[in-house]
């Protein structure tokens, strides 16, 4: 598992540093107002310039002997990563004033909030949909459920988000304001929002607006955060639940054909017990293995959804970073995502072993 992360870092590093000039790699670490000598010494410290390099302009011109080989650069880079030194951000407006690390983790709680709520919605909607589809196979509820889950899988996420915006912000208007907010993590101008004036402030414990507003006992803030969360989370959830529903459905269908289901029915157990105790327990187990996949999909999806809803998370920032070639930001994002996914898979494996008695022995 650690190996995967390590290899991932290698992949990302060589992909970026290998194909971009070292000056780009250096950009986050230097202040453009430094003297050339100052820049060179930082270049050496970061490991991209050799000690034998004469001047910074030589380095920038990629004079041979001036740039350290890629593998050496990697080890310096790895060392920096492990201590959390990602240089200064290149994002416009705050370039050079904050570290990449702090910018990333300042925005990360917003993405986390969005993704976690979306994940919960995915399960809440997706699993029952799959069950209904299986128990009423090939009848109307099955067809509807299959269209919904398949539709979720086929819908462009940005389009779905935009459609929700059109309906709830452009069409349903009350007093000249859309029903729900169009952008941001805190509803400012919408019919259901308290609005800027009434909301006040909160102290930041975790960085996650929902939690912080609860801890600060600021209910209007909490409410406005929830209201702003509805559309983006729904967008993410509905477009991600297709896979889950499909797996639950096919597992349930297979399980319902098993002999022990016939046995359970023959014992005179209620239909509800047969479906939800006997069948579901066996069907849901293999379904948790898609949790890792789902997390991947959610993180990726939040990039798009954050752009559509102008959500202040790391996804929307990623694109800006791409424009200004802030590689460090992107690398940090990739590695953090990698860690989350790998940990999720690990948790799933453990969970599977705990829940399936056959594996425990």
């Amino acid at each position, binding site marked *: 598992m650690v190996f995967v992360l390590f290899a991932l870092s290698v992949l990302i590093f060589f992909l970026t540093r290998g194909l971009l000039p070292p000056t780009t790699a250096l950009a986050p670490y230097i202040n453009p107002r430094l003297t050339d000598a100052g820049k060179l010494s930082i270049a050496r410290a970061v490991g991209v310039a050799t000690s034998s390099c004469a001047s910074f302009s030589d380095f920038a011109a990629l004079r041979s002997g001036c740039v350290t080989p890629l593998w050496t650069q990697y080890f310096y880079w790895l060392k920096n990563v492990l201590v959390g030194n990602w240089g200064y951000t290149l994002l416009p407006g705050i370039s050079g004033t904050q570290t990449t690390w702090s910018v990333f983790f300042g925005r990360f709680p917003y993405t986390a909030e969005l993704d976690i709520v979306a994940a919960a919605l995915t399960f809440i909607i997706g699993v029952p949909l799959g069950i209904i589809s299986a128990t009423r196979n090939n009848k109307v509820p099955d067809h509807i459920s299959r269209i919904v889950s398949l539709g979720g899988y086929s819908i462009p996420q940005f389009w779905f988000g935009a459609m929700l915006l059109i309906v709830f912000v452009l069409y349903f208007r009350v007093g000249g304001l859309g029903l729900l907010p169009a952008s941001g993590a805190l509803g400012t101008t919408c019919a259901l929002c308290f609005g800027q004036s009434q909301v006040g402030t909160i102290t930041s414990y975790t960085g996650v607006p929902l939690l912080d507003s609860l801890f600060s006992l600021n209910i209007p803030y909490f409410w406005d955060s929830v209201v702003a969360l509805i559309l983006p989370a729904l967008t993410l959830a509905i477009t991600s639940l297709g896979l889950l529903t499909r797996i639950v459905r096919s597992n349930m269908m297979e399980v319902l054909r098993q*002999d022990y289901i016939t046995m*359970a029915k023959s014992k*005179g157990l209620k239909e509800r017990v047969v479906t939800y105790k006997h069948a579901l327990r066996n069907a849901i187990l293999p379904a948790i293995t898609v949790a890792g996949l789902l997390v991947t999909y959610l993180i990726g999806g939040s990039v798009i959804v954050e752009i559509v809803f102008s959500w202040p998370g790391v996804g929307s920032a990623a694109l800006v970073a791409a424009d200004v070639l802030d590689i460090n930001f992107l690398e940090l994002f990739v590695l953090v995502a990698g860690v989350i996914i790998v940990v999720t898979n690990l948790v799933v494996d453990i969970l599977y072993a705990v829940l399936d008695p056959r594996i425990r022995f």
Partner: protein
Amino acid sequence: MSQSHAQGGGNEDVLSIRELKLKFHTYAGEVSALDGISLSIKKGELLGLVGESGCGKSVTALAIAGLLPQNAEITNGDVILDGKNMLTLEPEEMRLARLKDIAMIFQDPMTYLNPVFTIGSQMVEITQAEPKLFVSTLVAHRLRQIDKEAKGGEQGPKLLAERENLAESLRTQRLGRRELNELTKSYSISLLRSVRLPEPEKVFEMYPFELSGGMRQRVMIAMAMMRRPKLLLADEITTALDVTVQAQILHLMKELRSEINSSVLLITHDLAIVSEVCDRVAVMYAGNIVEIADVQELFRNPLHPYTKGLLASVPRADVDKIPDSIEGSVPDLLFPPGGCRFNPRCPKAFDVCPSKKPSLIEAVPNHYVSCFLYGG
């Protein structure tokens, strides 16, 4: 033995199937699985249902229990259990019937027990399904247990209190949830003991995969016994077991049958088992009942050519020759033969056989056969 049961248990039919016709709708067409079968089982009787694979024996059992798959259609006939027509019951009534009146034991206990739940939880859920039906049984059992404990020494105040609780529950016919689970647990453990499972308390907490085939089969029997059914349907219950274990299971079944006096429909393709255990036998071929008789009578005096062929094909240790087989093969029930379905393979077939279906008639007292050789 067969005589004592035929006369001892009262003369009513527990189960009576009349002219049951059933077909399956498959992608390849309609499969005519049951072609108008009729049979009956008296109270306390052990009826064997014999036939080759695919002849419709299991389907018959499923039809009785109301567990047919969705593509099955019953086109004719009745299934009367203790006066009620099973085919006209509402789903909820059918479920209660499966809980209390009919118990089914299946062939391969590995696949018929849910692998992720303990034996105990799969037994306890039976009484949880409809506690009202089990109050008397559970309370009576616990009271007996308390009596046994009391014999050893003083009747302590705890036991007395419990006695009072139980009497109260018996009066109101209601049990609290925890009480239900505890009583069921102790009842289940004693049932597991009565089916000769070693260390039944441990078995109660085990998972199905931890037990051997024979032990799992005993668990299934215990689950059936718990409901004290009027009719026990045993579908090839020994087929998946070793011969030695087979004998034990059959022995166990006989004991238990006499203990709770339920009727049994024993489905099997093994004639040896039939001769060991059954009172009466029904022979089935391609969706039809071709012969019904008392066990001894059938073996002594088989009437239907198919039965004769079956008996002749059993290998015998005392005769030094390879047994005969019946020529031909079982018909495809998508396109069953016209008239008597056995006629293409029958050595005694004559002109009327392919064109009309023979009905079941009493050729010899209490011995029914469906063959034109004997009229019908």
